[in-house]
């Protein structure tokens, strides 16, 4: 089942004509003949959920902004991905940038935004260059700019390059950084669809989410909603890394099990030679640890014991050093904490300190007691969800592998 990765071999990302020949921009042509609200309801009926982690239904989000009357509205494509283990949006931008642009244009039309941004990770120089060329070509063909396809619709798209901050993947922090403020989250509500960039209704959608939109419009919500489970339909790009034989990106319907992804020869193909499965981390550095016995869990958006986040699966084998991984997680979050709230700023730092001592086998009894306090504080008192994320993998590791971590 291919939606996002379809035609990747046939398309030259630097030539818009190859995208058009494979049916590109047909969805946009279809959309501008319909009313914006009809487009919103089509996306809503498709059941598409955001692909960056939270899994909020895209159509519902669009509907909030679409129904508000405002002199200005914005739509932003979130291509800031900086979760360790996740690089799917980079690959989409490199392989088929027009798919993202078309989805963004359809979104802009649906909510009534005249200005759109592609917020791209500051490290992504090559994909930013590809997107820039793609935008120029789309402008020449009159898909972007004033009077799209001869209609009276105007949508301008700008590329906005970030400057290296994990927190800017959070929609309010992202909006703040476009406004020239520190990338810190804002108090919600109001949520961005009501009051976002410069106080105007703003939709922030992940690049993979937008890449699904042209397909839904072309084939219809009914076709899309039948792929995978009804509450969380569609396909998802998963990224296999770690001790698995075939690493890389795999597009599968949601509702596939981790077991299938890791061991099926079509995807992961099992463990690397001589390695034995220990656990898998689902969803990047902020993801939970899935033991062997839970591999049959369905990978879906919505209520689930193991949230899939942005789709990364790190397979860990029994030879791996858990202390290195604990340090890896703590190191990442202490570096990326934005510093706005004390529990996260202090908590991630103290956890990192402890991780260092643990790695050097220099842990005191007192530190061991502190770990639980810190993890509780991070899980319960931080300002934004990213602080909670910092405790997820640690909490699982402490409860599952206390012997390996602390000794007998």
């Amino acid at each position, binding site marked *: 089942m291919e939606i996002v990765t379809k035609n990747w071999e046939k398309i030259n990302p630097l030539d818009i004509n190859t995208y058009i020949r494979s049916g590109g921009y047909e969805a946009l042509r279809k959309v501008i003949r319909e009313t914006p609200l009809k487009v919103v309801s089509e996306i809503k009926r498709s059941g598409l959920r955001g692909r960056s982690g939270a899994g909020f239904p895209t159509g519902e989000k669009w509907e909030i902004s679409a129904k508000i009357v405002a002199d200005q509205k914005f739509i932003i494509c979130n291509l800031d991905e900086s979760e360790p283990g996740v*690089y799917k949006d980079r690959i989409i931008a490199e392989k088929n940038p027009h798919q993202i642009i078309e989805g963004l244009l359809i979104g802009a039309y649906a909510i009534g935004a005249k200005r759109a941004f592609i917020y791209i990770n*500051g490290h992504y120089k090559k994909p930013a260059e590809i997107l820039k060329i793609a935008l120029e070509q789309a402008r020449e063909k009159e898909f972007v700019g004033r009077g799209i396809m001869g209609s009276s619709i105007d949508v301008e798209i700008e590329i906005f390059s*970030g400057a290296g901050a994990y927190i800017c993947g959070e929609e309010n922090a992202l909006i703040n950084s*476009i406004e*020239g403020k520190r990338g810190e989250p804002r108090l919600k509500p109001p949520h961005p669809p009501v009051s976002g960039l410069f106080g105007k209704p703003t939709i922030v959608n992940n690049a993979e989410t937008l890449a699904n939109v042209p397909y839904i419009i072309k084939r219809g919500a009914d076709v899309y909603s039948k792929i995978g489970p009804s509450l969380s339909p569609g396909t998802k790009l998963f990224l296999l890394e770690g001790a698995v034989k075939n690493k*890389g990106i795999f597009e599968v319907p949601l509702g596939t099990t981790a077991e299938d992804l890791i061991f099926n020869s079509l995807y992961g193909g099992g463990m690397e030679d001589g390695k034995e499965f220990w656990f898998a981390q689902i969803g990047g550095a902020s993801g939970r640890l899935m033991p062997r016995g839970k591999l049959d869990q369905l990978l879906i958006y919505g209520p689930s014991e193991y949230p899939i986040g942005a789709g990364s699966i790190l397979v860990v084998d029994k030879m791996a050093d858990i202390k290195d*991984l604990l*340090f890896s997680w703590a190191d990442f979050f202490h570096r990326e904490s934005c510093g706005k709230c004390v529990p996260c700023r202090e908590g991630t730092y103290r956890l990192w300190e402890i991780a260092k001592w643990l790695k050097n086998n220099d842990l005191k009894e007192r530190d061991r007691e502190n770990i639980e306090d810190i993890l509780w504080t991070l899980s319960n008192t931080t300002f934004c969800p990213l602080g909670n994320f910092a405790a997820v993998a640690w909490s699982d590791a402490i409860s599952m592998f206390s012997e390996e971590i602390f000794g007998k």
Partner: protein
Amino acid sequence: MSIQKILLEFEPKLENLLRVLKEINKQEKYISESDCLKVAGYFSLPLARVFSLASFFDLMNTRPVKKKIIRVCSGGPCTMKRSFEIIRQIEMLLKIEMGNDSHPKVKLETMSCLGLCDQGPVMMIDEQVFEKVRPETVDDIILDYL
């Protein structure tokens, strides 16, 4: 290029503030307090607002960078591909310690994911990115580039 010339390329709109600072950082290698003052004046913003933005992000410096900075990714996928062995190798080769700033010419740090997990382990020396680094070959890279 002088700061004035950079400023003239951008309208003083808020969405250009980060772009201006990134451009200054690109040309001057860091953003000084006096640069911030000029930017603040151009955008009619308080100095604190501009400096707080300049000091927030990884990709901008508010002080001159006088050392070579070696960064090794400590993300999960790179960790599984032995990035900590690479760090130990560099520590032994240069007789430095990760995170410690005592060497006069080089500093070794960990860094956050660059989204190149399929090409890992990833290392950077200043702006230059190195992919698929191995503990066995890292010595050659370091000695070549320092």
